[in-house]
Structure formats: structure tokens, C-alpha cells
């Protein structure tokens, strides 16, 4: 679901400013990909704060005790949300970054696989969790994140992203979990490209799973 469809945020000028603060970088990391660069959002203090506030307003009364952020851009949004709602922050990391005992979840890329890890003991059974990342494209990384949390008995309440398409692979949910997105990806008006971070803008996948591009986080 989109923030603009919910919470009385339709036509909310904050969402427009958040969308416009995100820079589109064409043909990164490879030709045909219109990369949604959130670093420009972070340079706009008001828009960045508004993005965090919209998430905080949504989640503060949902009894969430864990905010899990996907490395590395999930780290830029997750902690602020966690602090505001009184939850702990759990980083979900690429292999061999976390120093303690971990559980790992592999996921499929266009070519090959990647892996997400979480510290054993960071999350307890029964905890209510939010997963956060900057963007969702194919949903592969977020699905791996959901599986990690569910494997330790947590309940994933929702996945939250700043940018994403209305549907991921034709679904509004990821593994049955709701997805909450602030804004849709933008195109450059003078640049035609078949896909956005690997998923075609009209919602139909033109290429195979492209978490390769998301894994460059």
C-alpha cells in the first residue's frame, strides 16, 4: 500500500517533496536501469525528517519491538524510526560482517545468490517486527529478511520502503506480508528506460530477478 492512499496522506505535500528529493540516476549500475538515489533525500533535512515522521506516525502504536534494517541503506532510515517508537534496531547484513553467531538466509539474484545474516539472540520469539529498506524492486532481499525474522519466531508486521512500485511481481504483499511504500519510482522525462532497478515500470517484469542491483547497497 502507498502512503498516499492511506493515513489521510492523499495529496500530502510532504510526499511530493520526498519524491522530488530523490534523484534518478540513469544506467546505474548498468544500462537500462533508472537508479532511485535516496542520498539526495538525505541532503534535504525537511524531506528526510518528513519521511521518517510518516513511518513513525504509522508504526508508533503498533506495538513493534524490533526494527530490522537491511544493509546498508536500510541503516539510514531504520534507526531513527526505532528510536522514535521505542524499538530496538537490528541490522541485517551481508555475509561475514556481523561478529557474533549468526543465522543466514540465501536469496536469488539474476546471476547467482546472495545472503543476508542476523545475529542469533537479537530477536526473541513472539516479537513484532518491522523490516525497513530504502527501496523494493523484486522483493528478493525483503523476502530473505522476512524469513530470517520468522525463523527465530518473530512476527513480521510489515515491510516499509521509501520507494517502490505498486506491485511486486504482481502482488501487493511479500510472502503474505504487507508492504508500505512512501513514493513510486520516477523516470527522467527525457530518458526512456525499460526498467527501474530491474523491474519494468508498468509492473511487468522484463528481466529476471534483479536483486543484483539492490545488493549493491
Amino acid at each position: 500500500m502507498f502512503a498516499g492512499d492511506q493515513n489521510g496522506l492523499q495529496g500530502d505535500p510532504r510526499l511530493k517533496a520526498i519524491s522530488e528529493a530523490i534523484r534518478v540516476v540513469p544506467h546505474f549500475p548498468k544500462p537500462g536501469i533508472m537508479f532511485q538515489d535516496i542520498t539526495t533525500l538525505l541532503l534535504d533535512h525537511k524531506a528526510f525528517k518528513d519521511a521518517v515522521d510518516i513511518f513513525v506516525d504509522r508504526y508508533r502504536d503498533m506495538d513493534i519491538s524490533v526494527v530490522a534494517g537491511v544493509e546498508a541503506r536500510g541503516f539510514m532510515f531504520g534507526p531513527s524510526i526505532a528510536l522514535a517508537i521505542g524499538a530496538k534496531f537490528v541490522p541485517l547484513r551481508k555475509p561475514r560482517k556481523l561478529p557474533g553467531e549468526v543465522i543466514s538466509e540465501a536469496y536469488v539474484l539474476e546471476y547467482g545468490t546472495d545472503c543476508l545474516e542476523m545475529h542469533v539472540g537479537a530477536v526473541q520469539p513472539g516479537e513484532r517486527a518491522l523490516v525497513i529498506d530504502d527501496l523494493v524492486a523484486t522483493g528478493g532481499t525483503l523476502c530473505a529478511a522476512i524469513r530470517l525474522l520468522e525463523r527465530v519466531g518473530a512476527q513480521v508486521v510489515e515491510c516499509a520502503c521509501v520507494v517502490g512500485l505498486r506491485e511486486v511481481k504482481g502482488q501487493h504483499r511479500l510472502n503474505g506480508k504487507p508492504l508500505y511504500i512512501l513514493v513510486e519510482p520516477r523516470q527522467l522525462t527525457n530518458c526512456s528506460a525499460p526498467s527501474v532497478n530491474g523491474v519494468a515500470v508498468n509492473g511487468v517484469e522484463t528481466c529476471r530477478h534483479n536483486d543484483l542491483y539492490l545488493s549493491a547497497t
Partner: protein
Amino acid sequence: MFQDITTLLLDPKAFKDTVDLFVERYKGKDISVVAGIEARGFIFGPPIALEIGAKFVPLRKPKKLPGKVISEEYVLEYGRDCLEMHVGAVEPGERALVVDDLIATGGTLCAAMKLLERVGADVVECACVIELPDLKGRERLNGKPLYVLVESH
């Protein structure tokens, strides 16, 4: 002996106190940029930036930032690494804070400071949660002040 800050993040009160200590120090000091070093600097930097009214600038490993970048190489125990920042993220004359979870030898912080200084920013201070003072990283900061919350010997 690895200093693992992830357990600090599991304690909402302690994590909030950590951020609050930095915010109290830097609020009202006219700092417009908080630059955080990948990846654990991304955990502490943005909450500080949001509270003090500054922008957040991620300093990243090579080839992660999508736009035009400037790069600063630095020496590791074996070999070299590189830190990058987006061109245009920071303007000349801006007052900047550099944030990371920990300072050891100071090599990464030094590279971070150089990136900011190359675009004409004024690095006001480097801020870390933990210092390993035996590694003398403080001395590699070209006289820039360092503020840490805890030391670990």
C-alpha cells in the same frame, strides 16, 4: 577484541542516550553536515543529523554511490581501501561532523576528513561511540578534535 555495537542497538534506552549525548554536544553549533562512514556510521549519523537540523552524507566503499563521486584512498594493515562521497553533496564553507561507531587507527576517519576538506568544508569534529586509545587514532586526525563516549583498552 571486536567491539560490537549491535548489542547497544538492542537496548532502546542506551541507544537513545548515545544519540542524545551527541545531539546535546552538536545542537546549536551551526553544523550543516553529518557525514557517516559506511556502514556502522550510517546507524548513528542520521539520527544525529535529523535532531540537529543537518543533512546526512554517506561516505561509502567504492562503486556504491550512483552519481559522480570523489574518492580518497587510505592505507590498511595489508593493502589499501577507498572512501567515496557524492560530488555536490557538501558545499564549500559548510561545517561538518564525521561520525563512525569506532576509531581504531584513525585511517578511515582521516580519509573521511580529507574528502570533506577537499570540497572546502570545515570539519568541526570527529565523533565516535568507542575509541581504542592504544591504537593512537587520535593522532592521525591532523589536529582535528575527536569526541568519544567510551574508551576500550
